[in-house]
């Protein structure tokens, strides 16, 4: 009996405790930078698309919500002809971000993407592309290494050396 009354008193005191409720539309929770929300396609520091259309994200996606078609421009630079994410299927697992070799696809802290029509949840490339480098500023895939596709000259990349002139005697 005493313990019952004590329980009731302790529960009553909760009237004056701080409430755990966050009143959502007015008051928002602080999302951490690594929160896995809406998916975006980022650009490199020169403003070009980072995506090279390698299909690794589409292959990694457990719910098959990513569809894309790769193509090349006149210099041989690969880019996606279309890039489509169906957010009504997406489970925001972040596997696409992990799979991406060029840091193009990234998940950002935003979950407010409710729509009245289901079709509006299918995002095309122009909806996904943002004018930002996302979480990896300064990274430029095409400038790191690789063949000349109009971004850098042969051997001018950050992680490569100039080609050796094999006819020269000096080291």
């Amino acid at each position: 009996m005493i313990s019952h009354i004590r329980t009731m008193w302790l529960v009553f005191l909760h009237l004056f405790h701080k409430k755990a409720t966050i009143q959502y539309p007015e008051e928002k929770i602080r999302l951490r930078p690594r929160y896995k929300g809406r998916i975006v396609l980022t650009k490199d520091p020169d403003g070009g698309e980072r995506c090279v259309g390698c299909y690794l994200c589409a292959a990694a996606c457990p719910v098959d919500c990513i569809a894309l078609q790769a193509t090349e421009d006149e210099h041989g630079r690969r880019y996606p002809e279309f890039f489509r994410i169906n957010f009504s299927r997406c489970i925001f697992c972040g596997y696409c971000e992990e799979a991406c070799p060029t840091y193009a696809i990234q998940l950002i802290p935003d979950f407010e993407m409710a729509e009245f029509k289901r079709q509006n949840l299918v995002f095309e490339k122009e909806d996904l592309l943002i004018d930002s480098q996302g979480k990896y500023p300064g990274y430029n895939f095409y400038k790191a290494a690789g063949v000349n596709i109009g971004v850098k000259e042969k051997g001018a990349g950050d992680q490569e050396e100039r080609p050796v002139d094999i006819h020269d005697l000096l080291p």
Partner: protein
Amino acid sequence: MTVMQHIWIVLGVLFVLLNIAAGLIWVERRLLAMWQDRLGPNRAGPLGILIVLADTLKLFFKEDWIPPFADKWLFILAPAIVVGSVLMSFVIIPFAPQIVVADLNIGLLFFLAMSSLGVYSIVLGGWASNNKYSLLGALRGASQMIAYEVFMGLSLMGIVMLTGSFNLGAIVAAQQHTWFVFTQPLGFIIFFIAGIAETHRLPFDIPEAESELIAGYHAEYSGMKFGMFFIGEYLGITLISAMTATLFFGGWLGPGFLPPWAWFFLKTFFFIGIFILLRASLPRPRYDQLMGYGWKILLPLVLVNLLVTGAIALCLRG
């Protein structure tokens, strides 16, 4: 009192009671939420009080379905009985001097009789639903309410002995100097426990017990028929709170700076708050624990209380 005045009192009491019963939906959800460190419904209207309207509208627009396997007429009758019998009990409560629907000289007996009639709604509702969980709930409800009916009646007999009347007006008048909670503390505790069991509120919500019986006797009910059970439950809380205030806490008696009806409502709302606090804090006992607790502890206690009260009353008078 003229006939017209009487009709006004009846209508006024009905209006206030039904509004309180509906408003308790909001009060309970808000208070329960506060005690669980939440906020509860606070969007519709000022402080969320229009949730009552939204809930009622929702209940009205739900499909009013009668299962094909149910006993149709009993199924319809059961929710009406619970509201009817509880509302009938309010007839004898003096809300303020002169404001009472029927000043019966056997008021207390009338209250006990009417609250016993409430068992029929549970039994008939559970039986007519033709569903094993409903029937189990109905069986539990019947035995629980009959068991606790016994102590409820007996716990009030101490008051009747001290007052010498079954009339609630006389009982309130007898508390002019001391509230009966001080002279009948055991009677108060047992009456309140029996009252919780009588309204089958948590922690004694054994006839409904969501976690064991889905929803017990009203599992098959939907729409406003379910709403009637709901309203009946809230009216029952109000009734037990009002009776506790009247019988043990001096009813409308109180210092003169507030009108008598205000004192009555203050006391009633205090006990409604206790009902909700009980729901927020205590877990449900097992069914056999409830019955054992009732018959093995409360019944002897209430008999001892009766005996001692009788002896003291006899000594004082002799």
